[in-house]
């Protein structure tokens, strides 16, 4: 017994070091797996407040770019208005829709919620965004995030009272189901950590003809994003000799350098398919 105490006294510094290292490594591996811990909510609130102060200044330098992309988004929306289209048809007449507005609201699947970006990084090996909108403003985990022009940015991974953390596409663990718009082939979009704004599109068979500049959109298979949101365009096609699939490099449509506002997509019909899937898994076990 005495020897143990002597041992502890002699090697106390080493033991203390191993203890602190253990704490750090535990925190690291724990957060990488679950993206949510007890302290991350508090830490998120504090860093959110500091980041907001910084963003108040930084925002002014980005006003011009933000304005330009808002004008672009508005242009797309204005071109979709009903009065822009006219049929040279005598049948065209005004009809009053008899469906009650309540039933229409029940049909709604996706609801867009605006959020201010307060923190953003592009040059780390795992990048996150911080949004000034949290639990109290209706965000929960696993919601999709798009930029002002409705192209994919990431997924909400952690939510605190007033702030939330978004895993950006520029993250080693981000994996989004995507589709070639032209042929409808599905694959997954990941990031290899090399260049910001360039992603990798995997699992596309070599039998498919892919060209530079082809559009890649969301597949709508996951419950985070609706079908057909723009992810990016094909930048270059690597012919991987060791496998039967291409490695396609994709230039993202969203510009991660100057994100000031984003939209968080709330899927209001998420529960039913999830419940169904759970039941199927249960019966198969």
């Amino acid at each position, binding site marked *: 017994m005495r020897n143990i105490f002597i041992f502890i006294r002699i090697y106390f510094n080493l033991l*203390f070091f191993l203890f602190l*290292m253990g704490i*750090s490594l535990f925190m690291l591996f724990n957060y990488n797996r679950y993206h949510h811990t007890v302290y991350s909510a508090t830490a998120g609130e504090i*860093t959110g407040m500091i980041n907001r102060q910084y963003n108040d200044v930084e925002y002014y330098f980005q006003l011009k770019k933000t304005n330009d992309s808002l004008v672009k988004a508005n242009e797309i929306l204005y071109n979709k208005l009903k009065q822009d289209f006219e049929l040279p048809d005598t049948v065209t007449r005004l009809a009053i829709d008899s469906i009650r507005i309540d039933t229409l609201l029940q049909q709604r699947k996706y609801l867009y919620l605006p959020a201010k970006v307060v923190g953003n990084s592009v040059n780390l*090996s795992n990048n996150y965004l911080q949004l000034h909108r949290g639990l109290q403003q209706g965000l929960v985990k696993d919601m999709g995030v798009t930029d002002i022009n409705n192209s994919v940015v990431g997924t909400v991974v952690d939510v605190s009272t007033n702030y939330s953390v978004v895993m950006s596409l520029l993250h080693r663990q981000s994996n989004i189901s995507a589709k070639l718009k032209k042929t409808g082939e599905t694959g997954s979009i990941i990031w290899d950590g090399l260049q910001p704004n360039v992603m990798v599109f995997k699992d596309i068979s070599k039998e498919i003809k892919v060209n530079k500049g082809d559009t890649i959109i969301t597949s709508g298979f996951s419950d985070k994003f609706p079908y057909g949101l723009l992810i990016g365009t094909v930048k270059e096609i690597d012919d991987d000799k060791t496998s039967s699939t291409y490695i396609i490099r994709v230039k993202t449509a969203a510009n991660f350098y100057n994100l000031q506002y984003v939209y968080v997509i709330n899927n209001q019909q998420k529960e039913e398919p999830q419940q169904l899937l759970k039941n199927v898994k249960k019966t198969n076990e």
Partner: protein
Amino acid sequence: MSNLIKNIIRFTLFIFIQVFVLNQVPPLHHLVTPYIYFLFILWLPFKMGRRTVMILALALGFSLDCFTKTYGLHAASCVLIAYLRPFLINLLISQEGAESNYNEPSIKSMGFTPYFTYVAILTLLHHSFLFFLETLETGGYFYFVLKALLSSAISLLLILLTELLFVRKQRFRTNTV
């Protein structure tokens, strides 16, 4: 200015410079991620206890982790260099009794070559351990070695610039008092 206030100011300044300047500038290359925040640990007084240094290192690393959302990554690397710091100081100190004559490690108290060996070794260790933990997740060990070396080189350049721009006045304290 008292030691405590000076170190509190340094702590916040280093964290803010790392988060809002170095992490924000467009990357030179994907292999280069410069860090200078750990200079706070290297600049702590000679006389500070080893456990205190390690706890401060954990706090420093964790504060940066809160901003980059990599809880534990920088904390682990900072604790490592805080633990190894006293061994290196004992090895490299050249002037007799510099620990008692001067307050903290600097070019003036240790001499240029020993001080920069001390900084370079700890920078390399910090970066290697940091990127090693990062690659555990993803693999790619050649990439890790290259990234550690190149990032350390750029970080060292930044540290050298910091030392030249912000000369720390070191009072010579005679031990006869």
